[in-house]
């Protein structure tokens, strides 16, 4: 029936660096247990819902996690 996790996503200064800060209370009740920040790569959906990123080798981003180590999984999709 859906989980009970909650969270916020804001832009703020984190350790002297402007960042997208995702803060959440992730709970496992009701088979839940995730929180995510998402963005679309396709700019114009009237043209296409996907993008051709074949000329790139991968993604590069900086992630800073302040929770308990080895307790959360981090996925990129």
């Amino acid at each position, binding site marked *: *029936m*859906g*989980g*009970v*996790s*909650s*969270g*916020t*996503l*804001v*832009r*703020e*200064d984190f350790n002297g660096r*402007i*960042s*997208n800060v*995702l803060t*959440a209370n*992730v709970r496992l009740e*009701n088979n*839940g*247990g*995730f*929180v*995510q*920040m*998402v*963005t*679309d*790569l*396709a*700019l*114009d959906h009237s043209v296409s819902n996907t*993008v*051709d*990123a074949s*000329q*790139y080798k991968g*993604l590069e*981003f900086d992630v800073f996690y302040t929770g308990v180590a080895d307790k959360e999984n981090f996925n990129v999709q």
Partner: protein
Amino acid sequence: MTILFQKPTSTYSSRMITVILLCFMQSILIFSNNHHFNVAAFVIPTAMTSASSRIVSSSTEARATDDKVDSSTTTNKNGDNKAMSFLKKIGKVGTKVDFTHAIGVDEGSGGEKVSSSLDGKCEHDIAIRKANHAYKSCVESGMIDDLSEAFPITSSGTRWAGVTDNGEYIILYYIIYIYCALCFMYYILLNLSSFSFI
């Protein structure tokens, strides 16, 4: 097996009310399904609505000023009728709107309060949303988001959003579905005696 619909035992008006009620609930259901998703998204804060809130706050201040004026001239000193006084009171007529800090695309941000979370941009600057074609797609620039645009807009013109597994809307849908199903079953049972099975 064919079900023939014969004259029901209930009155015409009660049957119509039941059908209208079912249609109404169905319309609510369709509306809800079109506007929510299976997961709950966060409400993206502040920035994009700052312009309208600024204008509204200016108008509100002006209306408050007018209220004061009206309260001091409730005796229609200028000969206005009650309708005019009412229009003045609600701000439709004679409102003194302060456009000093109103939005204009050629205005800078001088003197405006700068939020620390907006990377040096004023609220009314970021409220002006660029057109999609003003952004360069991430596959062209190689950058999904360098945080140069005001949150939640990315530098490639898309938007950030937060999503959790929170399923409060799903529960609501289940309740509405069950309620509709029960209403439909009740309607069928109510008119069961009027059905003829062949």
